[in-house]
């Protein structure tokens, strides 16, 4: 009937004619599980230092954006050079609605999703029309236009100084509990994104995306509806980034165009997926944490850190041709995971 059996390398649980196994030998451990556990324990070790907690919260948000950008890159087979556009849309929608109309965070989430969806659908035809450099160009220009708008209509958007006083996502009464809660919320968002993207990549849809990424014409020949997949894989990650922007606005309670729409932020996001390893999904988490830690760690150097930060990143790109994930992948080369192939035409 019911039996529990401990073997050398696994635990076997039998119920009727059903059999469940859990492999405990370390080399078969599922690394994502360990990673998630480490990230769950981490805040309890550093809970006395609010700036470290803020840093790892930021790292989670960065990683969430990078995961979505990776999915978008693989699905559309093009690199979006303006991922911050949707972060900006999400953040500004949440901030403006909250400040001027007094909507609470649940309502702003719904509106943020709708607005990001609308913009993503309106802009999505460019994945079909724009070839080569033009895709990079259009996506590069969109956030610049948005940034310019936040400057021009400064009395509404406050692009330079930032909107502040946005309602917090939750309030537990004590400041240190709030920090912890925000960390876990950001972690939850990141893990949900990771789970969704991971499942997608391993499913039929992921296979079709990988086929499009490898060779669009061949994919079309074998019957993949290329246009549908490209549109979908442009729109859904964009909404994900918009939600990340909503999260930023409600967590840090301030949102400025100059911080989140500028080229500096774009470079940071792109570096996460480059240092993480050419748009590999787990790599983008490592990349997100790496960039956030580096940014915060270098701040101890004083004003020179603005020079050292890009220098370090340049060195990283040179030293790690396949990214940090590539170091792992070298030893586990049999795991197939689609990765970015950028084409020039």
């Amino acid at each position, binding site marked *: 009937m019911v039996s529990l059996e401990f073997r050398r390398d696994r635990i076997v649980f039998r119920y009727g004619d059903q059999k469940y196994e859990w492999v405990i030998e370390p080399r078969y451990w599922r690394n994502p599980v360990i990673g998630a556990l480490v990230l769950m324990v981490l805040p309890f070790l550093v809970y006395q230092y609010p700036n470290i907690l803020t840093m790892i919260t930021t790292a989670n948000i960065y990683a969430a954006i990078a995961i979505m950008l990776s999915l978008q890159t693989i699905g559309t087979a093009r690199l979006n050079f303006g991922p911050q556009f949707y972060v900006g849309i999400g953040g500004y929608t949440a901030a403006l609605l909250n400040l001027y109309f007094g909507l609470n965070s649940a309502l702003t989430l719904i509106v943020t999703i709708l607005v990001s969806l609308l913009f993503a659908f309106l802009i999505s035809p460019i994945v079909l029309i724009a070839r080569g450099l033009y895709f990079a160009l259009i996506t590069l220009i969109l956030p*610049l236009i948005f940034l310019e708008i936040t400057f021009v209509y400064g009395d509404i958007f406050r692009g330079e100084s930032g909107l502040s006083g946005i309602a917090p996502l939750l309030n537990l009464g004590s400041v240190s509990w709030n920090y912890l809660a925000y960390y876990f919320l950001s972690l939850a968002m990141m893990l949900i994104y990771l789970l969704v993207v991971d499942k997608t990549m391993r499913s039929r849809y992921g296979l079709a995306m990988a086929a499009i990424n490898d060779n669009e014409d061949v994919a079309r020949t074998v019957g993949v509806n290329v246009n549908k997949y490209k549109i979908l894989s442009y729109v859904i990650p964009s909404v994900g980034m918009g939600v990340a922007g909503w999260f930023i606005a409600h967590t840090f309670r301030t949102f400025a165009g100059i911080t989140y729409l500028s080229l500096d932020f774009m470079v940071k996001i*792109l570096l996460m997926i480059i240092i993480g390893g050419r748009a590999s999904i787990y790599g983008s988490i490592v990349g997100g944490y790496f960039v956030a830690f580096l940014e915060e760690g270098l701040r101890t150097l004083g004003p020179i850190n603005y020079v050292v930060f890009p220098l370090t990143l340049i060195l990283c790109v040179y030293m790690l041709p396949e990214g940090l994930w590539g170091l792992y992948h070298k030893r586990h080369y049999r795991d197939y995971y689609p990765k970015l192939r*950028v084409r020039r035409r």
Partner: protein
Amino acid sequence: MLELLQSIIVYSFVFGSIYLLVSLGFSLICGILRIFHLGYGLSFVMAIYLTWMFMTELKLGVTLSIILMILVQFAVGMLIHWGIFQRYLEEEEKLLTLSLLAYLVFAHFANYRYPITAGVHLPTTIMYGALSIGVTTISYQMFIAAITAIFVTLVFVFIFLKTKLGLIMRAVSQNLRGSMLMGVNVGLTYWYAIILSTIPPIICTLTIAPFWSVDPFMGESMLSIAILIAILGGLGNLKGSIVASYAIGFIHSVVSFVYTSRFMGLVALIVTLIMLLVKPEGLCGAEKLW
């Protein structure tokens, strides 16, 4: 009404010429190497801050500092080509990010060493005073900058149309493989293109430094002007760049005279976006140099 029209014409001429000089090097790289040099702003920032550095720290004269700065610029251009463009020509995302990072390193360094309060300025004013054309008054230096811009452009056009190097560059920009078959040393042409493309920003910065607002992050605005002009005229098309520069200059002056100068950047961006969606190959057709 007539006075307004006159101001608009004069200022579109002056700013169009300056924008032409700003975008010339960018279009050149775009046309020949077929890449976006997002670190293009580096040349502008370096032109000012290196000259200032040589003048104040090494106590050199203005002319000597400028010569030294030009040499360093060539060296840095070659370094960027060797380290970034050559290595990552096929990996677009690394190329763009690395070139932008190279710019950020120098811009932040300049900001660290000489923050905006340090009062960096270049004594490159050639002629003081102001010129009156009808009701419009502009300083001589602006006028000289515009004339210089036209002269430099003419020299470049001459190089492209009348010399063998120009012929080779046009060939490379039109058909890379075909020019290789004809025995063009493409690698060497790229080096020449890099060297040539650093010259217009240097001349531009030196002539406009007395009246332009100089700060360590001026490269970004210059880069965005260059990108807009490159898109509007057709990627890397020199003829298109000339037309587009005056178009952007016209848009800027019309918007700032008729409406308010706050909107001039936005209007130019939106015009370019519409251009990209309606006629992506630009005014004069992309993928060729002339």
